[in-house]
């Protein structure tokens, strides 16, 4: 069962690499914001997975804070692109 979680961590790391390549390549700023959003959603599942592998209940608070606050940065950049704030 340990091996299963390690392989899942490898697959998720591959997903992170692909999103980061889009962040480097992306022609406009919107593409980069989309890549940032995908990476921050992927990191939520990485944090919960690592919390299960370290076997500590208190560690998933970090991922809770990510889920609550992580999208505010994306939201504010999108409002800037729109011309608002």
């Amino acid at each position: 069962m340990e091996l299963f979680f390690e392989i899942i961590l490898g697959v998720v790391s591959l997903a992170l690499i692909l999103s980061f390549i889009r962040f480097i390549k992306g022609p406009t700023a919107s593409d980069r914001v989309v890549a940032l959003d995908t990476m921050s959603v992927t990191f939520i599942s990485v944090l919960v997975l690592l919390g299960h592998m370290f076997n500590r209940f208190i560690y998933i608070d970090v991922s809770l804070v990510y889920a609550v606050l992580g999208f505010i940065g994306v939201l504010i950049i999108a409002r800037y692109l729109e011309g608002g704030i």
Partner: protein
Amino acid sequence: MTEELMQQILKISFYGASLALILIGLYGVLTKKNLIKILLSMAIAESGLNLLFVAIGYIMNGTAPIFSTAVLDENNQLLETVTMVDPIPQALVLTAIVIGLGVTAVGLALVIRLYKHHNTINIDEIRNLKW
């Protein structure tokens, strides 16, 4: 791959990343002309410094401090000891992150005032001390 090799790779990654961040931030502070870029480089260098402090206090296969519970048998004898990482760098870094946010916020407020007065944020063109 053995345990020792993995530990070596981990140490090289943490220390290498933190040193690279500090050096890149220092380069940006020294060579860039734009004030916002200078503050951004300061934020990057500060992130590297925080990572260096926490990585120094890390002990291999330790667990987080304060939360740990001791493992006792029925006669209240200690069965096994729990390795903890060093809590002092974590407390220092916790303060340093918040202070860093304050420094960045005050610097950016000054940048906005400078822009409204001089109509530029290039440090070569802002020469006089008069506001």
